[in-house]
């Protein structure tokens, strides 16, 4: 279980101003839960995800995964970034074996594991391609495989499908759910898209405009696989849009 208690984070700009990014965040995420973070731009959701990843430190508050405090990046958390983050000098296969190399797993074994994950994301025939030969959607699928191969408990995803076109995005959402159902990981997923959140999440966390607070934690109990345009999905969407709308207005003001 992931537990965040009274977490605060303030940035200090070079001019000496203080920007409160996160204020008093308390959140519990059960194992194998799919949670979407949604909120206006600059509300601190990425900061929260980076703190959970161990890439940044909070000013105060406690943060644990399976009752272990987070002090830095660790193998129990994997991350998929918004930008394309594959190592361009490594082939697809070697990108995926990266973390296994660090663990000193023998070559034949780590390549076998990597191929299994490549199969999972449907890119086995691209094992020996270089990242620049892949489309945006394919790059993100490899990035997911690369994060999963480390077998983390929590998968952190920072708007991973933000840069791909709508059709690809729908397909990637399907694939992600497939993987999630097979591998049963806890997923924290940042998105700007209410549609995406409604399709993916067990639980949606809505953030306020800066300073980032949690405004609402909304459970979506719709059965899976979900119908994007069902009556129930539309009702959830309407509710989230209304909650979010007020915040986006506040962010603009």
């Amino acid at each position, binding site marked *: 279980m992931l537990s965040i208690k009274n977490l605060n984070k303030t940035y200090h700009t070079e001019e000496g101003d203080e920007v409160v990014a996160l204020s008093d965040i308390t959140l519990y995420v059960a194992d194998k839960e799919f949670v979407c973070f949604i909120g206006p731009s600059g509300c601190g959701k990425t900061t929260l995800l980076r703190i959970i*990843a*161990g*890439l940044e430190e909070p000013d105060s508050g406690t943060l644990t995964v399976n009752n272990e405090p987070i002090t*830095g*990046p*660790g*193998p129990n*958390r*994997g*991350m998929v*970034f918004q*930008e*394309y*983050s*594959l*190592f*361009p*000098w*490594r*082939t697809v296969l070697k990108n995926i074996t*990266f*973390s296994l190399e*660090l*663990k000193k797993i023998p070559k034949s074994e780590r390549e076998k594991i990597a191929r299994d994950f490549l199969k999972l994301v449907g890119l086995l025939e691209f094992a020996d391609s*270089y*990242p*620049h030969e892949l489309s945006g959607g394919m790059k993100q699928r490899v990035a997911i495989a*690369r*994060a999963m191969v*480390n077998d983390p408990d929590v998968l952190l995803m920072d708007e991973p499908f933000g840069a791909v076109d709508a059709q690809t995005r729908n397909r990637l959402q399907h694939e992600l759910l497939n993987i999630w159902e097979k591998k049963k990981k806890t997923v924290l997923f940042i998105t700007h898209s209410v549609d995406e959140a409604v399709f993916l999440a067990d639980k949606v966390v809505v953030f306020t405009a800066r300073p980032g607070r949690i405004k609402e934690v909304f459970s979506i109990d719709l059965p899976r696989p979900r119908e994007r345009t069902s009556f129930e999905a539309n009702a959830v969407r309407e509710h989230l849009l209304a909650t979010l709308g007020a915040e986006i207005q506040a962010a603009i003001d």
Partner: protein
Amino acid sequence: MKGQTLEITSVAFAIIIWEIIARIINRKIILPSFLEVVTAFLELVSGDELYKDILTSLNFFVIGMGAAIAVGIPLGIMMGWFKTIDKAVDPIIEMIRPIPPLAWIPFAILWFGLTQYAAGFLIFMGAVFPILVNTYTGFRNTPKVLVESGKVLGCIKNRDLIFRIALPAALPSIATGVRVGMGVGWMCVVAAEMFGVRTEMFGLNTYGIGWKIWHWYALHHMDMVLTYMVILGFIAFVIDRLFRYIVQEWWLKWQAGTVV
């Protein structure tokens, strides 16, 4: 094919113009004609002087470039990765860097004598800064997302981050640095040899392409001077192409476009 025809025509045209102008001037010491240079070249190739000259110059070049790479890349890495080292070393480098390498000739001779190491030192002074600066820049420009990806995948130690992420990310920049450094280094070979720096490879006689330019100039054999100039350019061209090929095929096969 069409492009090639154009290239050949263009070169042929330039040679014809050269030949005509040389004949109009008709003074070998001002401008030897193309045919005279070809004759001089053929004469040179049939003897055993030329290969000794080339080997001598390459010997200097390899010493200087070897030292420049051995110092420039590690120092660039350290400065690019560790901010404190950067702050400590950078002012010193910025004091030395603007000095043109040829200004070191007096000290090179006093410190090393007229040996291959004096030439090596001069080439080193010319080549080390482009290599250093480009390595540094390459490290500084390592995309943050790649470093962070590495960290979340368990690559935490500085050593791992440097060798597994920053160094490969910086390779295109380092390759550019070495390439620029080789250009400056080759220039310094000529300068060093003009001051009579020599190796003992071939006994007591002095060899070297740069040396021969000076030597034949003193004898007013401008056709030989021009021949050696062409050889100088040709070798630089071959080295550059070879380097580019090696880098492209082995180091940077992963790149989408051609960078160096």
